[in-house]
């Protein structure tokens, strides 16, 4: 039976069959006969999540511009469909041509969050591809990975054949070019891996030996051969304005997480929050021009028909010409009822003015992310928001008719005390007071306080820091709950601490964790980022069986001299800069925005004129 026939039989039996059928508007069909390189772009989560991810969309359309390359999509099947697939012997297949994944030349996974790692293993297993890189041979596809989590590739070193570090638009084409000549010459898998390792930004873990100290820390990650690079520098697109950007986005049938057109306005961030990995690894800031964005936006709307376009970046308010951009776009789209949405917008007078015109913000309520409850702690993490800023924006918003506010905080930040937790509660109560001052009552007001637990991340000033223990997470959440429950306008929710703990283990983990992942998978762990599926006991027994202590990774404060697993990667940020930032954090000293002063983070090393920020001094 062909996959299509099997699928027709199974689709009526699953929830949301559209997840597996492909055929969406703008999805790309090609004749397989003319294809030299067939690549499956895999996202290790369910369709609705994977389809919302911008990076994979860019690569999909970019690669399909080339007539002899065919890029197709594949997502993690939901539990119900996986069960049927296994029962029916249906292998994992691509959405477009329904080709078994094992028949592709390459399978490229996007690593967006650590908790998707077991899904990668599961998808390989469902494809019939050996889970370990060392067990694959000439008949198997190359298994590649990229994305933010690839900045510490080591936990997946046994599983992934090679990683692409940094922005992949150019690197992937280099890899494919090499692959074509490799195929023509009929070279061995090993030969290809040794060659691909020489492309800038490519890391082939099996070509490196890792040695350890007696205490379990790393003493070195060294290439096995002379011509293999000893450190892999991330790839960066120099000119973001002219780099390829798709306009014929696939339009899904079912509601996905971000069901709208996405316009990337810039990459990078100048604010330098010390806990934020994205703010460090995506440096430097590079913008697209208003003219280019306007043209892209029009093309995207006319080729997708979306009723909403979202401006995407790490911090939308920082786009240098936001006022003109939003004016131009609202003007262009007034007639055809296309709304504009601006996530990650800092709330200030300008954005409120804007929000009056933009319905999306009004619907969803206002979101503020002070991250910490006291000014002292906000200085430690370099989050440049003051209580006065927040309260005066809230006051303006209430005066304009808003009555729903979301406040995001982190608990367990370095140096946090119960005083800081009290600060979170005080801030929430202050918001309620402001509403009362404005409206004379608190009817209809909703203040949603949400906390997540701080996870120390590689390539941030806090990469040396420890995470608070699971017991402490629980205590602090309970404490906040007590502080916040006295007011019925305040709603408190928190992220699962166990997920944060596992994130902390894998984000700064090393190769030894590969075994844990494999055992966890065998025990049935999958969709671990989904609260309802996380089976923490299974994870703990997986650590035990693998003889790996998770607390070594999550709770241990690292000395400045320690060699980290991710130091095989050069993210462009100097260790010296990160250490300096850590010291300043401990003293409660802030570092101003890059636009005020350059702090010499190191990124300029990667290219002359790469950092286009014009400093005021």
């Amino acid at each position, binding site marked *: 039976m062909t996959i299509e026939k099997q699928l027709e039989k199974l689709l*009526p039996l699953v929830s949301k069959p*559209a997840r597996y059928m492909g055929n969406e508007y703008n999805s790309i069909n090609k004749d397989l006969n003319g294809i030299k390189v067939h690549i499956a772009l895999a996202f290790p989560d369910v369709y609705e999540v994977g389809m919302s991810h911008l990076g994979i969309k860019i690569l999909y359309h970019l690669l399909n511009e080339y007539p002899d390359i065919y890029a197709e999509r594949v997502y993690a099947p939901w539990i119900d469909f996986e069960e049927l697939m296994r029962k029916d012997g249906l292998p994992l297949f691509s959405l477009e041509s329904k080709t078994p994944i094992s028949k592709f030349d390459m399978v490229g996974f996007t690593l967006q969050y650590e908790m998707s790692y077991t899904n990668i293993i599961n998808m390989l297993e469902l494809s019939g591809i050996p889970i370990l890189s060392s067990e694959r041979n000439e008949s198997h596809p190359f298994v590649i990975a990229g994305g933010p989590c690839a900045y510490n590739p080591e936990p997946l070193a046994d599983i992934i054949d090679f990683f692409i570090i940094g922005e992949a638009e150019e690197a992937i084409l280099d890899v494919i070019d090499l692959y074509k000549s490799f195929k023509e010459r009929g070279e061995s898998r090993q030969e290809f891996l040794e060659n691909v390792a020489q492309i800038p930004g490519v890391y082939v873990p099996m070509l490196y030996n890792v040695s350890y100290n007696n205490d379990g820390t790393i003493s070195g990650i060294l290439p096995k051969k002379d011509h293999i690079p000893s450190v892999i520098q991330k790839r960066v697109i120099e000119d973001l304005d002219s780099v390829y950007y798709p306009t014929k986005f696939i339009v899904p049938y*079912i509601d996905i997480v971000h069901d709208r057109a996405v316009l990337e306005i810039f990459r990078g961030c100048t604010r330098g929050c010390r806990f934020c990995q994205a703010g460090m690894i995506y440096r430097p800031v590079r913008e697209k021009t208003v003219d280019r964005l306007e043209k892209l936006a029009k093309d995207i709307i006319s080729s997708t028909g*979306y009723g909403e376009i979202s401006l995407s970046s790490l911090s939308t308010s920082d786009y240098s010409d936001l006022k003109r951009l939003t004016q131009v776009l609202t003007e262009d789209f007034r007639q055809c*009822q296309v709304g504009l949405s601006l996530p990650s917008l800092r709330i200030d007078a300008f954005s409120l003015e804007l929000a009056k015109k933009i319905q999306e913000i009004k619907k969803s309520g206002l979101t503020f992310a002070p991250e910490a409850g006291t000014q002292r702690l906000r200085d430690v993490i370099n989050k440049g928001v003051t209580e006065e800023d927040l309260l005066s924006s809230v006051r303006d918003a209430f005066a304009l008719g808003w009555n729903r506010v979301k406040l995001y905080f982190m608990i367990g930040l370095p140096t946090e005390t119960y005083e800081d937790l009290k600060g979170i509660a005080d801030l929430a109560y202050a918001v309620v007071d402001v509403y009362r001052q404005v409206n004379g009552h608190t009817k209809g007001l909703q203040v949603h306080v949400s906390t997540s637990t701080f996870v120390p991340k590689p390539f941030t000033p806090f990469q040396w820091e420890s995470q608070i223990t699971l017991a402490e997470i629980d205590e602090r959440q309970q404490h906040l709950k007590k502080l916040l429950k006295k007011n019925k306008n305040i709603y408190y929710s928190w992220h699962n601490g166990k997920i944060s703990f596992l994130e902390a283990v894998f984000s700064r983990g090393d190769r030894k964790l590969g075994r844990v992942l494999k055992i966890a998978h065998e025990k049935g762990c999958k969709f671990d980022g989904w609260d309802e599926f996380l089976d923490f006991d299974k994870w703990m027994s997986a650590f035990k069986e693998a003889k790996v202590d998770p607390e070594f990774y999550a709770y241990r404060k690292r000395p400045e001299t320690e060699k980290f697993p991710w130091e095989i990667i050069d993210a462009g940020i100097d260790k010296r800069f990160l250490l300096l930032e850590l010291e300043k954090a401990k003293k409660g000293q802030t570092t101003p925005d890059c636009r005020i002063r350059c702090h010499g983070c190191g990124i300029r090393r990667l290219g002359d004129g790469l950092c286009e920020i014009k400093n005021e001094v």
Partner: protein
Amino acid sequence: MKLRMKFKKEGLTRFISHLDMMRTFERAFRRANLPIAFTQGFNPRPKITFTPALSLGVTSSSEYMDVEFYEDISKQDVVLKLNGALPEGIQVTDVEEADEKLPLSMLNCAKYVVTVILSEVGPEELIKSIKILLQQKEIIVEKNTKSGKKLVDIAPLIYSIDLADHNSDTANIVMSISIGQQGSVAPITVIRELERILLKKLEVVGIHREEIFYISGDKKISPFNVEENISPKESK
């Protein structure tokens, strides 16, 4: 200006839910750059109404929608442009002005073709079971509703069932059954009842909605206001 369009939903698009179809059309209209009217207010929606929902997995050559435009446009233009912007499998086949036609909400009957595999059951057996089913005064089935399971009598909801044609492998069962607000029954429910009589499983390989209309007395009226007298067999 309001237009009534007839469209078909075939192939894989049969797995797209009713709700998702609305979104699909809204986007197709925007891609086609057609001047559809939107509701006023905070959350503007396009002014489109559809025929009663088709179950997931059912194909159709007889879906209708009424669409309002804020300026007059030619019917041919609409079909051409819209079809160029629709996903493969969904296609507009006919269009007329909607004014003075019966409201889509009045449609109360649909004709389905259900294709089953003839392996365990022969055509004669099938015909017999249909006859038995139609002779029953009451056909009580369990129905899942929002407030739990409920027993309903589907006998008054069945207008006709026939074995239309068959070959050595498959048979086409044609049934006219009630849809819409007055009460509705799914074709698969009728098949399950036939199985109960046959004491055998019927493997269904396709369900297709072929026609949809309004039945009153001995008249049936199509959404394009074509009137027909119906055969006594079909009348209730």
